[in-house]
């Protein structure tokens, strides 16, 4: 799915970005966010969506950080043979 290609209603250039396009993209982003607090999800302002998006991206970064750290500690205990097993299991 090439969302950028299907997005441009003009002749393929972004020279006239309309508010509608922006709102479309913002609501698309909104759908990706984990809904924790918002009861009225259709009434969230674009600024709020962007703010939540920033928070979400930061939390995803932190999550990968924590998981990588955990993996690093785990790799201290596994040995090469097991690593090869893991690899072959997931390559199927």
């Amino acid at each position, binding site marked *: 799915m090439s969302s950028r290609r299907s997005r441009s209603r003009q002749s393929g250039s972004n020279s006239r970005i309309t508010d509608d396009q922006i709102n479309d993209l913002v609501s698309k982003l909104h759908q990706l966010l984990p809904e924790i607090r918002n009861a009225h999800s259709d009434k969230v302002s674009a600024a709020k969506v*962007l703010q939540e998006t920033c928070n979400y991206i930061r939390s995803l970064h932190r999550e*990968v950080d924590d*998981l*990588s750290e955990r993996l690093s500690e*785990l790799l*201290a205990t596994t040995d090469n043979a097991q690593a*090869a097993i893991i*690899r072959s299991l997931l390559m199927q």
Partner: protein
Amino acid sequence: MDLQNLNPSSLKSRFTARFLRALTEINAPKTISSSSPREIFQRYRRIKVAADKSMAYSVRSRRIWSRATLWRLRTRSRSRRLVSFGRRASVKTRTTASHGKENKEHHGAVLGVQAEELRELVPGGEAMDLCNLLDETAHYIKCLTTQGFCVYMGGLLCEGCC
């Protein structure tokens, strides 16, 4: 079947294959002190780079953010080889989406601070107009969740093999 599109299952498998290859390389030099805090930290850094690399290479140059990440990774490894720590290359100049600059200013002003914050979080975001920024962010988030999932699964498997 797989037409090089963002198909979650194929992104996962592309990412996982690369990531596991990198992991086995990271895990390869088995020294006696492989569980010292310093070694653990160094391995953690390498895992992080491997995760970012795997993600960017799985998406290749189809996205502005992945191009920015690839460029940053290459620049960093190049400058490390040259041992010139002063040269922190900025991501800004390579990925230009400078058309629609007035739109960036207009809509960017409406969404103000949040858009600027987002630009700093998404690789290559500084040079994107608002439309691209929002589009790239959506794709970036999907890939980040895939990345987290794959690293998590890697951890589970390592745990299972202990």
